[in-house]
């Protein structure tokens, strides 16, 4: 076969390959979403029905997970939310100054923190910490046959490993989000006080008069969705590890990227529907 012909043949193959790959990826995506749904159903099943089957989800491991995913994330979530609050204040005041309305900055800060940035920052931090840790932990257990060992001991891996994490995340992410809201508002208050001379008391009054419970709820519901997304993606990537330590590394990276993408997209969808 002449070389030029070989080349064009190769191109044809790659073109065909791309269509085929697109198809394969779509199928893969559907399969993956299906898998995540099954995983969610099973984790919830064990949380609610486990007690009746004498296979309860252990309270002690839920608390351990709460410490691991929640409590130890407090400093970093606080720091980042505070920074976002300061930045929102800077940008808000800068923008509103054009209209001479810089004192209205508090409205902007209060609403965007509670509805958007609080849950989002918390979600991204936890996705980075817990999502990756979950994928790594479970992936390692797959590689070392620990998951198989649990299964043959008659211990359902999802009940034993996933349900406690899901429960812990569903409690801790909203809790962290509330803290992030406070930290963000505090950041805004500090900068507003410096730049505009608004007293903390006046700032607090303004925030309270602006915020409705619906705003807080919107943030909390989002954070519960994020908790589910992070847990499922981390766990699913962990369970699907093949090929030793390298595979664990791949799964970890993949779970962080997917979890953050999942959060941002879920956030957009949510915001779209909640605010129309």
């Amino acid at each position: 076969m002449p070389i030029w012909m070989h080349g064009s043949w190769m191109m044809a193959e790659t073109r065909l390959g791309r269509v085929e790959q697109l198809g394969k990826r779509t199928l893969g995506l559907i399969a993956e979403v299906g898998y995540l749904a099954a995983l969610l159903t099973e984790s919830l099943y064990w949380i609610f029905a486990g007690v009746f089957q004498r296979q309860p989800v252990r309270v002690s491991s839920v608390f351990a997970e709460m410490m691991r995913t929640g409590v130890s994330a407090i400093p970093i979530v606080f720091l980042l939310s505070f920074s976002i609050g300061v930045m929102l204040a800077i940008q808000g005041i800068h923008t509103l100054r054009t209209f001479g309305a810089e004192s209205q900055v508090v409205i902007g800060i209060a609403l965007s923190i509670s509805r958007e940035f609080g849950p989002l920052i918390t979600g991204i931090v936890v996705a980075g910490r817990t999502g990756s840790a979950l994928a790594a932990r479970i992936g390692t257990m797959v590689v070392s046959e620990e998951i198989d060992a649990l299964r043959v001991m008659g211990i359902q891996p999802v009940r034993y490993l996933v349900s406690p994490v899901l429960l812990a995340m569903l409690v801790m992410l909203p809790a962290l989000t509330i803290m992030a809201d406070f930290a963000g508002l505090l950041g805004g208050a500090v900068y507003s006080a410096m730049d505009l001379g608004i007293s903390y008391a006046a700032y607090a009054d303004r925030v309270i008069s602006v915020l409705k419970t619906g705003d807080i709820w919107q943030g909390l519901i989002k954070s519960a969705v994020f908790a589910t997304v992070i847990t499922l993606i981390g766990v699913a990537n962990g369970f699907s590890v093949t090929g030793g330590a390298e595979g664990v590394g791949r799964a970890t990276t993949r779970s962080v990227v997917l979890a953050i993408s999942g959060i941002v997209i879920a956030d957009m969808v949510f915001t779209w529907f909640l605010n129309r």
Partner: protein
Amino acid sequence: MSSVSDRMLTSDPVVEVENLVAHYGSHKVLDGVNLTVNAGEIHIIMGGSGSGKSTLLRHLLGLRRVTSGRIRLLGHELDGVHRSELQELRKQIGVSFQGGALLSSMTVGENVTLPLREHTRLDESTMAIMARMKLEVVNLGGFEHFMPAQLSGGMIKRAALARAIVMDPKLLFFDEPSAGLDPVVSAELDELILRLREAMHMSIVVVTHELESAFRIADRMTVLDCGKILISDTADKVRNSANSRVQDLLNRRPRVEELDADAYLARLTGE
């Protein structure tokens, strides 16, 4: 063959495999495997790497779905069994994995106690004593507070064995007991397997490629090659088998295939 408990004499076979076929993708790894393990016997499943013995074990443990064929453990059909029934079945079966598969986040003691904690409502002190007793049996007394990462390969295997027998299973699966161990440690493990069968009347299935160890403990042996069973018989009959392939394996002679020149050329050129 040493004495078999009177408790077990009346029992049916503990493992029955009929016509098991398994695939990895389109590659057939097990082809019509038939296997019977009798109560109270030590049954060795032997074969080189790629013989399909690991796949067979995974099937016996219910970790893979069969393409076709039937597997019965302790009289229960594995396929189509209800989840809670499978659960009950698994409490009567112990498994010691090749790499130990101890949960790395727990101490040795916690690992050994785990099945008791999950499946029984025994008193905390009873569970602790049972776990320590089993660690004593495998000569790991005093190691309960160690983490798996602090143990040597042989110790991990013994700890895994302690976990596998903590519920006093009727049936014990042991994957490659001697792989990666020095001969003395490996001989000790074999001795332990014999003692377990003697004292607890377990039926024990050992998957291995180590000939020496296999003949030391086997009542009966099944030799797998390329996904097919070459022979399944008493250790003596296997040793004296007239089958040339069995003799090749026993004498560690490499497989010599007739070379088909055309097919070989085709493979090399990828046509």
